[in-house]
């Protein structure tokens, strides 16, 4: 994508524009930035109305890598994922403690604009959720919101995004038909295209394949492998084989129960290279979980 095709969709200057992540160097070649830290999470906790839902999260997310969050239901992995683009702001009573830095800037800083955060850090959900609009409109929605009006420009962005999500060939002749007419797997790739259209740096995926059959799942996994050259991906998955297949690093969360109050709090147990986590994890709880003996 050239600069002309994708002007920065920024209505007003935001504090985030201080970051190195500018349009001119939107996607530097991976080699130049391999190993760079995108997020630095230090002692993060998430509270819902004063109740500590997740605690002790120390993670760093590396550029152009896929980081997987695994763990049993209720361990807080989705809650933590939603911190990365401030989706928890939308939940009343939710609060975050500790620090979550995005390129060194506190993501929860007072003057950070959450809308800009969500443009740079896109999200794909568990259940494919296309808008009840045409395929084209689904993808063009974000860029239009950002002020792009020219038809030729939108055409270019939509095609690029659909190609990026490996669905262009399947939909190019029916761009103006409803997105809801696609199969589940196609809908999910459409949602990925929609996320790509606003040119984010990071894509958060919350169990993106849990509603898909194995073939569609395989396509999404292939796609993740392809797009990680240009994006940084964090994925929450229940499918351990999927985490083992696609991720470079892996974080295992579990639930601790306070015996006095019976309160359950999610906590990070281990964060390491995926290879290590699935061959010889350091923590016995990780071993028990990845070998399927949790509990």
């Amino acid at each position, binding site marked *: 994508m050239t600069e002309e095709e994708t002007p920065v969709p920024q209505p007003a200057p935001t504090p985030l524009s201080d970051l190195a992540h500018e349009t001119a160097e939107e996607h530097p070649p991976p080699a130049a930035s391999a190993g760079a830290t995108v997020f630095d999470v230090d002692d993060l906790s998430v509270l819902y109305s004063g109740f500590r839902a997740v605690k002790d999260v120390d993670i760093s997310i590396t550029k152009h890598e896929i980081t997987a969050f695994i763990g049993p239901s209720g361990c807080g992995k989705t809650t933590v994922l939603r911190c990365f683009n401030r989706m928890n702001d939308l939940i009343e009573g939710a609060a975050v403690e500790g620090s979550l830095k995005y390129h060194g800037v506190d993501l929860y800083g007072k003057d950070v604009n959450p809308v800009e955060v969500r443009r740079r850090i896109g999200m794909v959900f568990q259940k494919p959720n296309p808008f009840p609009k045409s395929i084209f409109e689904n993808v063009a929605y974000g860029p239009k919101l950002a002020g792009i009006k020219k038809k030729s420009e939108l055409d270019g962005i939509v095609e690029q995004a659909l190609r990026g999500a490996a669905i262009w060939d399947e939909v190019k002749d029916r761009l103006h038909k409803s997105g809801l007419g696609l199969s589940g797997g196609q809908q999910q790739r459409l949602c990925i295209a929609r996320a790509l259209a606003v040119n984010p740096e990071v894509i958060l995926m919350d169990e993106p394949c849990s509603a898909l059959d194995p073939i569609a799942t395989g396509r999404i996994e292939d796609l993740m492998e392809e797009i990680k050259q240009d994006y940084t991906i964090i994925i929450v998955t229940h499918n*351990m*084989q999927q985490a*083992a297949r696609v991720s470079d690093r892996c974080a295992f969360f579990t639930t601790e129960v306070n015996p006095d109050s019976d309160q359950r709090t999610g906590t990070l147990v281990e964060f390491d290279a995926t290879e290590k986590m*699935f*061959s*010889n*994890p350091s923590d016995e709880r990780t*071993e028990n979980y*990845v*070998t*399927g*003996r*949790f*509990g």
Partner: protein
Amino acid sequence: MVRAGFNAELEQLRLQVEVMAVRVDQNLERMKDFLAAGDLEVAAVTVAADDDIDAMNLSLTERCYDLLARESPVASDLRFVMSVLRVLGELERVGDLALRVVKVGEDWSLVRASASTYDILVSMAETSVEQFREALRAWSSQDLDLADHLARSGPVLDVANAQLVRELLLLEGPSAVATALHSLVIGKSLDRIADHSAIIGSRLRYLLTGDPDHLAAEIR
């Protein structure tokens, strides 16, 4: 604890490997008996028993493939299945080496005829079988100390083997060459039995620790 069926299958597999090792051990005992008396019937029983060992090797290898395909084991489970596959290979090899000794057959009398070298062979057989028993004990109790001891034991029969060769070179007379050739084959086989037993120890050590250095030591 979930995956109870899978756990049971892994435990069953560990036991079956032990059973196969016991059969190899029985054949090693027969090999020693043959070496002591040159009984051709004992040699024949050893050869027949080795077919059972080979059949076990095949069926346990199939079980490993099956577990890999159905259960996708990871971490210690994966190391376990891979170690079983590799230990099976060692057991099968030790079984074959015992056969090599008994296949000397009626030429045993030529080996027996040279007292000095024969005594060395009998003592080497003791050592190699003892080494194998230690490997068997280590496997059946999944004992890291024993495994580590075996892995560090080094070439226990090198000195005896060198001494055997020196003695054989001194042999004279019409049957000296035949005696030397058979004795060499037996000596080399016993030496290798001890080596393979030590390798079982190093494979077990990596299974138990998962330490990359132990894997490197195992491959060597």
